[in-house]
């Protein structure tokens, strides 16, 4: 303490740290309960599917795909710099890539059972998986990814979501006309999502300082009552045309306009109810322009499929079609029904591994993204710092797990059945 007081530099740093902490606490979610919360924005809508940000022709470009390509370009650039002029005495990027390849070269040889180059066939895929997953994990937590985006209006939101409901309606009512299906779907969508909240904003920027309260339930934007919806649904089912019905017209108009209609109370639990007035403000959802590729199941599933498909290839190449296929399809007469059952389980195991690959990576990275968002709201400015470090670490660990599991499954696939039996017989 004495040292702290005697050194003005340290004192200034300490005071700055304390001020930053106080500002963070006051500006964050905790301060919002006391009427502060000046740094709090509305929590972004957390969506498991990745969002479309643009259309190339009719191809919807997802925000996660952009980050996948971005990470890929970085990786290719590093690889190009490292591999364009390899020298025996390495320098620069070559050092870096060499270190990765050497590390995995040792690892695959070790796991594959010892001898030099015994695991060479696994090396290319295992090291590539590691590097790709690391880079997409890391670019996914760059600041701005997941938090900068455009506003999707209520109109667009309905447009995106009604499709799935229409499909469902068409299945349960195959005899209805397209118009009926559309109207029914809209009614059901409102019934189902009436309490979903949207962000109120002035038309350009989502405001800082409104915090959690800037979220407006859908039924305050599109005004309807349950009874009105019920009546409408009955009319549609009775084959009546509701296009000119005043209630339906009002709903369509509200959706198109997409502004907050009235004052509402936000239930904070208990007796603490406050009225919020955002009347006239536009409502919508934040669609981030960028999103970490590993927080999109498509990406993780794609890598998992490549990994498990290659594992099967390794198995077939090492043991032949009969040898490797014999692990899954066992003759119940020759080797007994239990062996057959085990073989079927093994086949299911391969499928399960693909799925567990997919969700392990997706779950960890998606949870990390949400954790960062949550910390940005609990303790803006500083709360995110340690968790950024944690996410960098998790990014490497998950990539390593993905790569090593691919390697282990590969080694298991190329181990011949005889080895396995004699090993088991030893016990």
């Amino acid at each position, binding site marked *: 303490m004495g040292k702290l007081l005697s050194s003005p530099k340290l004192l200034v740093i300490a005071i700055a740290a304390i001020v930053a902490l106080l500002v963070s606490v006051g500006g964050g979610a905790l301060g919002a309960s006391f009427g502060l919360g000046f740094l709090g924005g509305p929590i972004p809508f957390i*969506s498991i599917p990745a969002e479309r940000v643009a259309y190339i022709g009719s191809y*919807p470009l997802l925000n996660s*795909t952009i980050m996948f390509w971005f990470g890929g370009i970085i990786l290719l650039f590093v690889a190009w710099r*490292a591999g364009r002029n390899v020298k025996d005495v390495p320098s620069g990027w070559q050092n870096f890539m060499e270190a990765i390849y050497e590390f995995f*070269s040792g690892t695959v040889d070790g796991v594959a059972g010892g001898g030099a180059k015994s695991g060479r066939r696994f*090396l290319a895929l295992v090291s590539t998986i590691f590097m790709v997953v690391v880079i997409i994990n890391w670019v996914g937590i760059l600041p701005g990814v997941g938090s900068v985006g455009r506003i999707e209006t209520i109109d667009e939101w309905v447009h995106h979501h009604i499709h799935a409901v229409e499909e469902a309606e068409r299945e349960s009512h195959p005899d209805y006309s397209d118009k009926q299906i559309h109207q029914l779907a809209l009614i059901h969508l409102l019934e189902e999502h009436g309490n979903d909240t949207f962000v109120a904003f002035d038309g350009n920027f989502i405001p800082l300082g409104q915090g959690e309260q800037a979220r407006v339930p859908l039924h305050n934007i599109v005004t309807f009552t349950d009874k009105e919806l019920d009546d409408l649904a009955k009319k549609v089912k009775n084959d009546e045309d509701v296009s000119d019905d005043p209630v339906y017209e009002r709903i369509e108009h509200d959706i198109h306009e997409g502004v907050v209609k009235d004052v509402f109370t936000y239930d904070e639990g208990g007796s603490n109810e406050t009225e919020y007035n955002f009347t006239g403000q536009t409502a919508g959802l934040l669609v981030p322009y960028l999103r970490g590729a590993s927080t999109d199941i*498509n*990406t993780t599933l794609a890598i998992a499929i490549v990994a498990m498909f290659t594992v099967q290839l390794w198995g077939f190449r090492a043991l032949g079609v009969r040898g490797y296929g014999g692990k899954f399809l066992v003759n119940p007469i020759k080797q007994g029904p239990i062996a057959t059952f085990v073989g079927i389980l093994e086949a299911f195991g391969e499928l399960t591994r693909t799925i567990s690959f997919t969700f392990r990576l997706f779950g960890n990275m998606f949870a990390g993204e949400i954790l960062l968002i949550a910390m940005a709201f609990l303790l803006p400015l500083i709360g995110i710092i340690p968790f950024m470090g944690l996410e960098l670490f998790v990014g490497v660990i998950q990539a390593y797990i993905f790569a090593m599991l691919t390697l282990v499954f590969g080694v298991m696939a190329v181990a011949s059945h005889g080895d396995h039996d004699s090993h088991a017989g030893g016990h």
Partner: protein
Amino acid sequence: MDALGITVQQLLTQLVSFLILFFMLYKLAYGPIMGMLDSRAQKIKESLEAAETARLEAASSAERVEAEIAQARVEGQKIVVEARDAASKLREQEQGRARGEVESMLERARTEIAREKEAAVEEVRKEFAGLAITAAERIVEGTLDAESHSGLIDKVLEEGLSERKN
């Protein structure tokens, strides 16, 4: 599937992207770097082996050189000893020769001296006898006849000489 956002279109996009990435990485980095690593390992192995043979060779040649040096040393010592022996032999020989010469010279000188002395004595005797005769002649001139008294004088001289000798 819809709730998770899995669509065939996006799945294929990511699948193709990953495969492209894999092959590009293979071409750009994996191929060249692994090739270089293998060739470097080979090179290191070779140069280690070469170093080992060079070390063995150096050790064996050092051994050879040492043996040669030892042999040379032994030979040198032998030569020195031989030289020393020869030198001492020569010296002894020379010394013996010199001594013999000196002795013979002494011997010669001594005999010479003895001869000279005898000759001198003879001469002195002769001279003395002559002188004595002359003297006696003078004394007894006329009274004595040289021939009849010379025997007597010789006898006197003989006695005198032998007295001196003793």
